[in-house]
């Protein structure tokens, strides 16, 4: 403990930001730049912000507006106030989709965070074929989610699927992976992890490479074991990166749809129907209910936003503690 106490790094890593530390000096002079220089940064981001505003922010806000109307065709709208929300909250299908979404998101975020950190630690070692393994883990990220759903659907099919052929050959039976709600949920979580973990590995790898190697050298000189280095140097310094992974995977988990739709169609018996599928079915399947779909989208947005803020504040508090 004494050795590690001496070598434990500060809670934040990376270089000091220019200008930081000057606050509170009381004599900071405000530099007066010409107006065109002050305007320039805003002009650089303006095209991006315009596109973002037009195609993301405006539709998102307009979605809230639509949630207050009833429409079966996207052209004729009748104002109904909060009744879309009222009706949605009284539907058992909504609560079922919400429950499945929470189960999926919790498992997906936990597994993604743990597995991506674990694999990134392995891939950060000087092992033979490191570039090959990094490519292998990243490869699913560039495959179309629809194709991913179809491929895993064939693999997990009960009677003629690849997995059950192997299990059956080994005398282990033929589980109904996609016909049992619990197994089907496990399958979609696994496929989600397989599909996305490569992206999160990259983020963690970037975080790992940002940790100053002198901390490890000092720790080794003080006799710290590998486990102690991991626990007291790597994981604390990875906290900002871990927060990014948690937030992004949380958003990803709540938005999961495409590969699940092709893999299970939300079945069996709605066992893998998540919120986005609930929204999709209301918006695009007969009978079309744009208002109800928009209301569900608003609820999903609020849930993701609230969880992101809570997570951010929690980590901020940890940082400052």
């Amino acid at each position: 403990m004494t050795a590690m106490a001496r070598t434990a790094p500060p809670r934040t890593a990376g270089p000091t930001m220019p200008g930081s530390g000057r606050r509170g000096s009381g004599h900071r002079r405000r530099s007066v730049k010409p107006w065109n220089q002050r305007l320039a940064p805003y002009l650089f981001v303006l095209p991006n912000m315009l596109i973002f505003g037009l195609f993301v922010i405006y539709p998102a806000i307009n979605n809230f507006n639509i949630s207050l109307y009833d429409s079966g065709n996207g052209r004729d709208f009748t104002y109904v106030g909060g009744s879309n929300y009222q009706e949605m909250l009284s539907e058992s299908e909504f609560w079922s989709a919400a429950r499945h979404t929470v189960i999926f998101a919790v498992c997906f975020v936990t597994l993604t965070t743990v597995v991506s950190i674990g694999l990134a630690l392995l891939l950060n070692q000087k092992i033979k074929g490191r570039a090959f393994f990094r490519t292998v883990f990243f490869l699913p990220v560039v495959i179309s989610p629809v194709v991913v759903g179809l491929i895993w659907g064939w693999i997990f099919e009960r009677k003629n699927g690849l997995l059950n052929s192997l299990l059956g050959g080994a005398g282990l039976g033929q589980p109904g992976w996609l016909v049992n709600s619990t197994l089907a949920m496990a399958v979609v979580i696994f496929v989600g992890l397989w599909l996305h973990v490569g992206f999160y590995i990259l983020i963690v790898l970037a975080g790992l490479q940002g940790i100053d190697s002198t901390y490890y050298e000092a720790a080794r000189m003080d006799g710290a074991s590998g486990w102690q280095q991991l626990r007291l140097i790597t994981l604390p310094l990875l906290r900002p990166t871990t927060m990014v992974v948690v937030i992004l995977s949380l958003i990803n988990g709540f938005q999961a749809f495409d590969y699940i739709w092709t893999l299970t169609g939300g079945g069996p018996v709605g066992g893998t129907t998540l919120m986005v599928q609930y929204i999709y079915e209301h918006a695009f399947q007969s009978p079309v209910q744009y208002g109800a779909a928009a209301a569900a989208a608003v609820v999903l947005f609020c849930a993701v936003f609230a969880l992101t803020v809570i997570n951010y504040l929690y980590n901020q508090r940890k940082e400052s503690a």
Partner: protein
Amino acid sequence: MRSARISLTVTVTAAAITLLASSCAPGSSSDGGDTKQADDKKLTYLYFTDGPDEQATRDLIDEFEKKTGAKVNLQIVPFDNLEQRLQARLSGNNAPDVARLTDITPFRTDLLDLNKFQKGALNGKFLKGADSYITGKSGELLAVPSDLTMNGPLINVDQFKKAGVPLPDPKQPWTWDDMVKDAKKVQAANKTQNAIAMDVSGHRFSTMLSQYGTDFFDKTGKKPGLDTGKATAAVKRFAELNASGTMPKDLWLQAGTKYKAANEIFLAQQTPVYLSGNWQVSAFAKDAKFTWAAAPNPCQKTCGGFPGGKFMASFKQSKHQKLAAEFIAFMNSKASQEKLAKDANFLPTRKDLISSGVKYPKRDADMQTFLDDVKRTPQTAYASAYSPAFGATADASVKELAKVLAGDSSPKEAVEAIRAEAQKALKDAQ
């Protein structure tokens, strides 16, 4: 101080955008009834293809272009995207002049009254069962049934022969008991995974309901018609067949809420009987590596199959309404429908063509089996199939049947849930 300024800016911007977005009701309410008409002779035809019908349609378009000097732009879209694309185009006031549809219900208020231009050529010329569906509140002709589909079984003749089971007689339909017994014998002799497979579709299950003597809706198509006793018997039989492995239970459970055809199981020779419909005839003529045939629908309380089909319609937003109506009339003339039926193995919808009959150059015997079932199908099945609430109720029935197969509900509970959904769908469709 700085962060307070940023917060204020963000809040003001967000408030401004919110105000902008919510200052008016979304969408546009123009019905396009007085759309300014263009002089050019150009038409757009939004189309999805079943496969062999595409070339026949192109040939007919060529003929129409030569005859009228018009130019028809055939826009082929995937069936799954058709409704969404059409809704988007209507919202953008950019509707096609003509579209091929399977369900006109979501577009009823947008459709052009074809009687305004082609009453003589179109009104009253098509099968009676679709009349209430294609007729507007004030007697408008909103669409034309361009082809009829008929659900029915297809059988693997090679497997029946190997099992020594005689083929069903198209003129004297078998019963459900006969069909199940024969299919099981063939399954055992050929060691197939299943004996009977049905597409995961509420439309296909409606065939079984109709044969058990009941339908989602009554003879008007505007009131729920499901008889609890008869429907429960059908659902119970369906559940038993799946539980025993006679039918592939996994197919229904794995599909979720998506449509899933069982054609691959039939083509892989893992089921000797496949409950689908006449649209498979052309596809199987090309893809099947074994001898197969259409079989008559099994009888229970009633005989016959269950109808479906496609419609051609134009829109009030069209800038070429007269030409669009002329095109629809041409494509659904006796000669055109006969060509399309022969080339694509479609069933005709024109009364005159139904009574004169169609001699198909390919798979004529199979098509005649389906035509025989058209005659046996009760009128209530047509009323149900063409009810504006059919689509939503059929989708709900798939969910409810899956619950029964998973053991989450009883056949009676499923029937009650389907009935409640039919009631809700009728209310929504009004």
